[in-house]
């Protein structure tokens, strides 16, 4: 199995930390500032002493000056849940390299950075019933085995924390295979509802769903997620090279379209793609979602080390 990220890239990613624009709302202690008061080194406020308070937090200097008992309060540091919504539908399997591979690498990088920052990482792959919709063919034991492994990996990826889990995280991520038909909006809505607290959400998809993407993104924002959307398209989708009289079959729905396409009609198509991407970008900007568009054969470092950093996804 080929490693998703090179050791060199992992080393460079270790320098980053996810920049959360909001306070962590998790109830679990972690490394992130939160509005909750608790035990840390960061002084937050004073309050009057009441019977039963821990005497160790009394400010004796203040008692000396004012002759009154005040208790020093410290900020409670909580964990930051990072949820990665990874589109694993059939359509993500296209491209050279495939869009799913690229998405998985981005997910691995973000997850690795989060794990290094002691944040909880949760990967939600949709459709999440891989292995049931696409039963392996008879006699293809290797496929069957890989399907079982993928199911196990999915389970393991639901909640990962700690730097020591990072290698297992990357391994599990590498075991995933794309397949099946996804409902983008439904998947994101369910993810939003199942999350106990908001956090950082990164959506990795091609955003080519007949049902649209608006409802799904809206539900994440409403749930308090700090959302980043990464649209990954294959080079063939951006600039097709199949010309002539074609019958195009949708890999997920099986729906077909009859198209006569040629070099001279390429301009119309690229305009359609441009408009689609621009519409998505406008939608994201209006809702405070950071948007990134990239090609599956683009440079991963360019996205990770430059664009995400410039957009202060991490720093």
């Amino acid at each position: 199995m080929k490693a998703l990220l090179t050791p060199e890239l992992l080393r460079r990613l270790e320098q980053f930390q996810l920049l959360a624009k909001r306070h962590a709302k998790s109830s679990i202690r972690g490394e992130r500032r939160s509005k909750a008061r608790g035990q840390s080194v960061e002084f937050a406020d004073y309050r009057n002493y009441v019977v039963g308070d821990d005497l160790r937090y009394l400010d004796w200097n203040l008692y000396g000056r004012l002759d009154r008992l005040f208790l020093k309060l410290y900020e409670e540091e909580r964990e930051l849940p990072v949820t990665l919504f990874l589109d694993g539908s059939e359509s993500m399997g296209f491209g050279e390299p495939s869009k799913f591979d690229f998405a998985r690498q981005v997910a691995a990088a973000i997850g690795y950075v989060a794990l290094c920052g002691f944040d909880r990482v949760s990967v939600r792959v949709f459709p999440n019933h891989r292995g049931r919709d696409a039963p392996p063919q008879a006699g293809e034991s290797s496929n069957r085995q890989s399907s079982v492994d993928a199911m196990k990996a999915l389970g393991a990826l639901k909640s990962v924390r700690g730097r020591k889990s990072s290698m297992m995280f990357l391994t599990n991520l590498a075991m995933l295979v794309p397949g099946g038909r996804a409902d983008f909006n439904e998947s994101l809505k369910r993810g939003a509802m199942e999350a106990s607290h908001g956090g950082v959400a990164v959506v990795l998809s091609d955003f080519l769903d007949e049902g649209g993407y608006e409802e799904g993104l809206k539900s994440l924002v409403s749930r308090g997620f700090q959302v980043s959307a990464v649209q990954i398209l294959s080079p063939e989708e951006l600039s097709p090279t199949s010309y002539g009289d074609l019958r195009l079959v949708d890999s997920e729905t099986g729906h077909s379209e009859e198209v006569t396409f040629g070099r001279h009609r390429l301009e119309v198509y690229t305009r359609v793609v441009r408009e689609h991407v621009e519409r998505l970008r406008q939608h994201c900007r209006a809702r405070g979602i950071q948007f990134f568009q990239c090609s599956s054969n683009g440079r991963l470092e360019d996205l990770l080390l430059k664009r995400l950093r410039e957009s202060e996804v991490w720093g």
Partner: protein
Amino acid sequence: MGVNFLSPLAFVFAATIPVVVVFYLLKRRRATRVVPSTLLWQRYLAESQASTPFQRLRHNWLLVLQTLLLLLAVTALARPYFGGELSSGRLQVVILDASASMRATDGKPTRFDSAKLEALKLVDGLRDRDQMVLVHAGVSTEVRQSPTSVKSVLRRAIEQCAPSDAPTRLADALKLAETLTKDAPNSEIHLMSDGAAKDLDEFESQGLRINYHRMGVGGRNAAITGLDVRGHPEDPTQRRVLATVANLSSNAIQANLELRMEGRVLEVRNLTLEPRATSSQVFTTEQRSPEVVYSAKLDFSDDLPMDNEAAAVSQLPRPIRVILVTAGNKFLEKALRSHASAHLEVASSLGGQSPEADVVILDGVSPDPWPAVNVLAFRSAPAGWFTNSTELEVGGIVDWKPSHPLLQAVDLENVQIAKSLAVNPPSWAVSIVEAAQTPLVLAGDFQRNRVIWIGFDLYQSTWPLRVSFPIFISNAIEWLSPGAGGGAPASSRTGDPLRMMLPEGLSTIDITLPDQSARTIQLEAGTRDFLFGDTARAGVYSVRKGTQTARFAVNLADPAESDLWPREELRMGKHGGVGATTMKRADLEAWRWIAALGLAVLLWEWWFYNRRTV
């Protein structure tokens, strides 16, 4: 000004328009490709084209243009034209030489067929405003089609033309063409001929645009150029048949000459003829029947078979009944008695009835009524022939016409005449001997009878003492009794009219032509002499005259016509000449083929476009 179509049948091609539309409606064979999502393609389709067939047709400019192109092509094939007033175009006069030599088989298949093909090509090349006249130069020159632009009419007229067995007078045809093109500034004359014509030097081409389309390529031919039958000078039952055979090829030939009498072979001779050589063969046969047909056949395969055969009708001489009405003329009586066939009867007057004779000779006697037979009259004429006649002293003969049959071998050089009647010749007669002041001898046809009129008394001249006198009398008897004395021509040439004497009281005669077709001819009352002109076919003509039957042989007998070598240049007049030309292909109507080809390419393009897969 309405639109008409020369080829409305071409609208049948409009049936191809639905074919093109069907091509558009047909399901195309498409290559199947699995793509991640068709979402973007749906939007692309919404922007670029509609997907259902009829919506596609609605906005398909290519289909509209192709349908328009088809409509234009079909309309062009239908050849629309506007009937309106236009300035005149070219006038083309096509002369089809229909002479016997055009039957030579070195054409497609004959020279005449080649000529018709060339003429049809000219018709194809006619432009809208051009006109064409078709002149058929056969036995006679006929305008088969007056000026017209209608090609179908011209084609039909050309198809109906056929060659004859006769020589032709191309000069007449060219003169006619000259007349037709006189007022047409933009005119051309197209002569479809092999140039085998003797009379072209009679025609002066004065700036005429003559295109000579030379027909034929070879000249392999041998011909019987003459067949004649003569009496034997010593034995009246013997006949001598004279056949003239010419080799007009460039190689020596060897052939059998066969002589038949009424179809029965009499003799076969093997002949060897050098190139361009002529051989005369004399056959002596015995003839018992008063009339037989001799035929000669040259057994040789050449380009013109029709001149390898010839026929001649031989008639044994029969006595000529001559009545001499005179008060006494020893010279005349002696000259008549010396004629071998003449059966002379001398009378002092004719009496009131028509005489039973072939020839009546009136010596200073003017009977009333004038006899309705052929007459030789000395100083005698019925009232009305001459307006005034006075007697003059004439002295000598100043001129005579030696080419006339009456004056053959007659020398009038030393004939002196004292006095003669001075007359103005009537319209029916020609003067053949003349003095300074007046004609002396007239000859002509008067009321269907031949008449020789002599204006002086024999005793007033030295003529009876000269050798020329009995010769003239003999010539006169022969001329006044055509066909009676065995001197009738054994055969005549194709195209020449047949002259036949008829018994009295006939209303119809039946003529059977060489191709066995029959003609019945209604005669006017009292017709004694009949000319039959439809002798374009060579062979034996049979004429049924009441109870009698006569036969006439008609042969080509024209060495110039049998000489098949196509002439590269036609000599015209004294100095002119026209070289053989080639057809001007630029005028051919080729656009129809190109339009049809374009149509085929269009259909093929769509078939190809719709079957290809990428």
